[in-house]
């Protein structure tokens, strides 16, 4: 799946290493050091969380940390902006926090 959306480039970063990580329990791979949002998108994942109020799906919007739409729980810390949080080997990403808030409100 990953090769589908990875682009060829003449100015690629050197020394990128494949690492494993999880998203909502799913085993995925990405490049170490790239933003988690990029690794998710490379795996075909566009929906990162649901809106706490409307429950609508949300994903990457601005890509530079300004809009806060791509937030997720990363290794137990909630509301991390995945567009500027580098991927590490074994990183656990989940959109559970927002869903838990939603459940708690019911």
């Amino acid at each position, binding site marked *: 799946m990953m090769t589908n*959306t*990875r*682009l060829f*480039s003449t*100015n690629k970063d050197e020394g990128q290493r494949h690492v494993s990580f999880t998203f909502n329990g799913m085993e995925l791979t990405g490049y170490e050091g790239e933003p988690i949002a990029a690794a998710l998108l490379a795996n075909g994942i566009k929906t990162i969380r649901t809106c706490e109020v409307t429950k609508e799906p949300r994903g990457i919007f*601005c890509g530079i940390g300004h809009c806060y739409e791509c937030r997720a729980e990363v290794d137990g810390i909630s509301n991390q902006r995945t567009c500027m949080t580098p991927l590490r080997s074994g990183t656990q990403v989940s959109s559970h926090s927002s869903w838990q808030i939603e459940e708690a409100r019911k």
Partner: protein
Amino acid sequence: MNVDVAVIGCGPAGLTASIEMAQSGLSVVIIDEYYRPGGRLLGQLYDDPKAPVHQRRWDGKKVTQELVEQAIRLGVQIVCGVTAWSVAPRWKVELSGSEVKSVQAKALLLATGAAEKALPMSGWTLPGVVSVGAAQTFTNVHQVAIGKKVMVVGVDPLALSVAMEMKHAGIQVVGIALPSQSAVTGKLSSPEDALSKLAEAADLAPNPFLRMMGRLVAGSLRKVAIHALSLPLLRLEGIPVYLRKAVARIEGEHEVKAVTLQDVTVQGVPTGREERIEVDAVCLSAGLYPLVELAQVAGCSVTHVPELGGLVPLHGKDLSTTADGLYVAGNITGIEGAKVAMAQGKLAAVSIVQSLGKAPSMSKDDAMHAVEQARDLSPIRFLPQILEGRAIMDQLWQEAWRKKEGGQAWMI
């Protein structure tokens, strides 16, 4: 942490400034919220026809790497992934996301850059809809496609450049169209206005096809071009540019599945005819605005100059502000390209070095001249009236200065 100068923003302006300041013997720390240095320089990749032959290729990643290496060699501390959430006079910078909670500095340089304006429309919160800047970052920096079939909304030099960059990277760009008329789009939805903006960008565009588009709508051809609006469409390297169709809404239940285009008149008024195009991603382009929040928090006067991109800190030609020891450089002063930001970074550094009693590598006059030269040589002009905007700021600054001399406080 104690330093001579704290710089907020590790883009072209902040990096260039830090090098000049460190060379003059000042201790410098740069703070940036992003996980790596470079700011918007990272996403830039184009051929600059105005540059000397051996410097034509502008690879923002490479330029960043060279600047970072030089800065580090000179002892500049670069702190990434850390947010500067407040600044207070003479000068304390509050940090989050790091062990060090604050920085004390004799002078502060705000090189915070710009952010993108929103372009709200029906369906714009669906996953798969991204800003044009995000499309550029994911294409050129992360090298991940934002989609397989992409529609670009907004006809402006940045949108056209990013559309071509995506196409060159192998993404199918199905078209570039204007946004529909709404309370927020205003002039953005006018085909005539879009054409005249493209005309103003002619000869400055980094890509020959963009220049061709610009010339098509420029000067004596302008009337012909307006007439050409009645033609079905223009093409930019094979990408359809719909000047008489506007994106009415983005559709999809959980993610983007399609856009609906509607035919519009030369003034942008819908005629009633609609068509649906299947896509899996949409890029929205509405322009940039300077990021001035920290200048406001610092108690620096800000003023609205639309020709510069919106609200900007009141600043002098030497890039000092109304707050003592606070300087600005780069897009926080007005929306321009990286080369202007770099020249401004150097100028702000010269001003700071002088104010702290050290000897800069060049005079303020020479540094100011270098900014003007960089502007003349810029391959892209984001705001057509940037020169007028700079002149307005100079005038406002002088007026404010006179008022201060007369014993009045700075106007806020």
